[in-house]
């Protein structure tokens, strides 16, 4: 409609921001045009979050250096409401839905249609349905409680809400139309991400200026018109579409090349030196898991597989395929009991709860780091030993701090956790380092089987490479590893064996290296069988 290429809608000049002791931004310049998707890349700690906080008004005017102008006038935001008034809407990585309200209520939150001062529920439903339709989400029932939706769909509801806000959505409004999305696809399945991409293309053509933050470079290359890379709080440069090149972007981000990202796969076959043929570490037969929402439906259907010592077993599948449910049910963390037969080292095992699983040597690094992982106001040391504290206790009771600290320091060194000291609040670490603390928590339980559910979600390229190397090292030392990730490339690159899950069924089992990305996706999505 009104693609006005070239004219900057929003400009940031010389942005600087310091927290006590830390310089978050050291002079960032960039501009955002109407009708473009502008990707912002950078490692964790590069300053992306700070930049978003400034643009979204969370860091008020005066607290940072430099200036932000929208349509030629300088912005002096005192809070997010001011930014919203200027048409800047931020969709944060952490979802901000009211889980107890319905989808329609969430979409209309703060701007509820009313009649005679009373809520007009009918219009609210219609408006919400219209917004959802615009996003291609006709399958979401506006009357369902938002909390019952999977994470991926909740994200979409939040985008629907952002687009509905009058100053952002109204085509007649004088306000600018800026939509900032912070890692919008980190929780989405490939199909949902595709939907989102289509929507973003449409919004771009409607003249929106979209600032898109993502760790997934393939996505950025597909989607973006321009890429700005931040490194250590400074702009490392802006690339036009014809300059896009993965190696170049990665080296701009980290100062090293992409080849170093994935370690070479060690070939492991049963019967070789590293894996003698013995009973499998974990053997799952006909594992059936009922759905908590609908007892007649099964989340998992007749899942059977073995996991051997020293093996990395990758699980590929779309969101909702049952990957996380499989991981959680094996550790007794799923709300319902599964049926079937599980053996750990040949002995029957019935999942009960996480403590029971740990006793049998099963540890799960769960996908929801904030919700189910970290105790943010507790120290790195405490977070590291929550699952293994008994090992550092006299009589299972009295904590021996010296022993504990020794073990924690060991983890900090081997995992290269960047923390000033073991007593530092875990919540103040970067996402990648929090993840390492959690990996350390599970390693300290000395598991035989380590299940990693989205181990690299929301962490930067450098930390990813370290985690990949760690996974390989652990496997080579004889641990059995189940690797679940939405980043299919990492599963395909790292795994010795790969299961493709679709709708709770194992559709395919392949040896690592024999499955190409496109084929895996097509099996997972149901293109072929």
């Amino acid at each position: 409609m009104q693609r006005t290429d070239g004219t900057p809608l929003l400009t940031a000049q010389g942005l600087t921001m310091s927290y006590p002791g830390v310089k978050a931004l050291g002079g960032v310049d960039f501009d955002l045009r109407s009708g473009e998707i502008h990707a912002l890349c950078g490692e964790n700690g590069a300053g992306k979050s700070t930049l978003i906080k400034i643009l979204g008004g969370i860091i008020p005017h005066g607290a940072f250096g430099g200036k932000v102008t929208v349509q030629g006038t300088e912005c002096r935001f005192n809070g997010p409401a001011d930014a919203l008034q200027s048409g800047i809407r931020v969709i944060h990585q952490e979802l901000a839905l009211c889980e107890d309200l319905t989808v329609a209520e969430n979409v209309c939150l703060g701007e509820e249609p009313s009649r005679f001062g009373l809520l007009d529920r009918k219009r609210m439903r219609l408006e919400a349905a219209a917004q959802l339709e615009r996003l291609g989400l006709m399958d979401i029932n506006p009357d369902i409680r938002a909390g019952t939706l999977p994470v991926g769909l909740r994200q979409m509801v939040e985008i629907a809400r952002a687009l509905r806000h009058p100053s952002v959505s109204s085509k007649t409004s004088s306000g600018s139309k800026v939509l900032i999305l912070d890692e919008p696809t980190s929780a989405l399945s490939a199909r949902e991400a595709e939907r989102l991409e289509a929507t973003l293309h449409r919004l771009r053509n409607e003249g929106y200026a979209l600032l898109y933050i993502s760790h997934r470079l393939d996505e950025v290359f597909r989607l973006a018109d321009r890429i700005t890379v931040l490194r250590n709080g400074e702009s490392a440069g802006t690339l036009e579409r014809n300059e896009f090149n993965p190696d170049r972007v990665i080296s701009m981000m980290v100062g090293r090349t992409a080849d170093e990202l994935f370690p070479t796969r060690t070939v492991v076959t049963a019967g070789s030196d590293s894996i003698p043929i013995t009973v499998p570490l974990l053997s799952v037969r006909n594992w059936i898991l009922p759905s908590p929402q609908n007892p007649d439906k099964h989340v998992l259907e007749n899942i059977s597989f073995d996991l051997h010592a020293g093996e990395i077993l990758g699980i590929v599948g779309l969101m909702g395929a049952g990957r996380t449910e499989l991981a959680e049910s094996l550790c007794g963390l799923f709300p319902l009991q599964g049926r079937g037969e599980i053996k750990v080292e040949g002995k029957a095992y019935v999942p009960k709860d996480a403590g029971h699983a740990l006793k049998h040597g099963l540890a799960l690094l769960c996908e929801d780091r904030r919700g189910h992982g970290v105790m943010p106001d507790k120290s790195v040391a405490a977070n590291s030993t929550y699952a293994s504290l008994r090992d550092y206790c006299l009589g299972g009771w009295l904590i021996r701090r010296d022993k504990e600290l020794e073990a924690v320091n060991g983890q900090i060194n081997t995992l290269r956790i960047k923390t000033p000291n073991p007593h530092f609040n875990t919540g103040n670490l970067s996402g990648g380092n929090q993840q390492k603390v959690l990996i350390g928590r599970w390693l300290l339980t000395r598991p035989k089987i380590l299940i990693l559910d989205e181990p690299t979600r929301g962490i930067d390229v450098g930390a990813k490479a370290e985690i990949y190397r760690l996974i390989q090292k652990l496997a080579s030392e004889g641990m059995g590893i189940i690797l679940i990730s939405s980043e299919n490339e990492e599963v395909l690159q790292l795994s010795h064996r790969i299961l493709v899950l679709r709708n709770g069924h194992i559709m395919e089992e392949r040896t690592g290296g024999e499955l190409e990305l496109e084929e895996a996706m097509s099996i997972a999505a149901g293109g072929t069988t």
Partner: protein
Amino acid sequence: MKRALVLLIAIPLIWVLFHFLSGGAVLSTGNMVNLFKYMTVTGMLAAGMTVVIGAGYIDLSVGSLLGFLGAVTAWLLQSGWGLWAALLAGATLAIALGCLHGFLVAWLRVPAFIATLSGLLAYMGLKQYLANPVIPIRDTTLLSLGQGYVAGIPICVLALLIAATLCHFLATRTRPGRHAFALGSNREAARYAGIPIRGITVFAFALMGLMAFLAGLTATSQLMAGAADVGDYQEMYAIAACVLGGTSLRGGTGNVWMSLLGAVLMASILNGMEQMGVTSTVQKVILGLILTGAVAVDQAVGKGKNG
């Protein structure tokens, strides 16, 4: 510990301020001893409450419970039980009731607020039934807990220090204590980490029960009788002391010694007003304002996590 410094400076300042306002009545040895004797019951409850709140719960029953446990002990003594037998029975009952609270919360999933609110009502009724008429205490050993001195220090203050040391030790140096605060910090993460949530919940409430028993003995001994109104509103003072000491009602944080400083702060303000001749009705209003004001200042300064 910035807050510790603030409290350690504020408390003497309050003494000096009220000393002058009251015409020199506060900073006498006799009054200071009284002030600390007065805060022991709240302090004992606050020590246990720090762990309960740290685990993400609340215990509203402790005021009635301490009165009830004190009355039970007094009644057992009156009925001819020996002191140690009565104390053992009282402690067992206290821990059992604490475990009951924990059971209701952890197994039957009754919210702690409701379970202990029910306890508040139930123990209040039992206490009023049992202590009508008042049961005098004649056992000299028990009386010395509330009345006696060792080297010029009231025995009840020593008892408080021992109780607080025990709670602090349990909270920071033992597995159940560490896990209790993990529970309050992120309950789901605690479940995923294999922390035995139910056991830890029972632990926190049982410890609270034991502290209520000690507080009940102290209060009964100070009054020299098991009476119907012993312990009334003490649960509120204990929670207020925790909050003044920086404990977040959202759970996960809290320090026993800080809660004790909160209790001293509160007692100092009440004592100062008492010495000025402010009536007890006005004292309550002012205390309420101070509590809210302190938390509001805390939030405005920014670091606060009270709620």
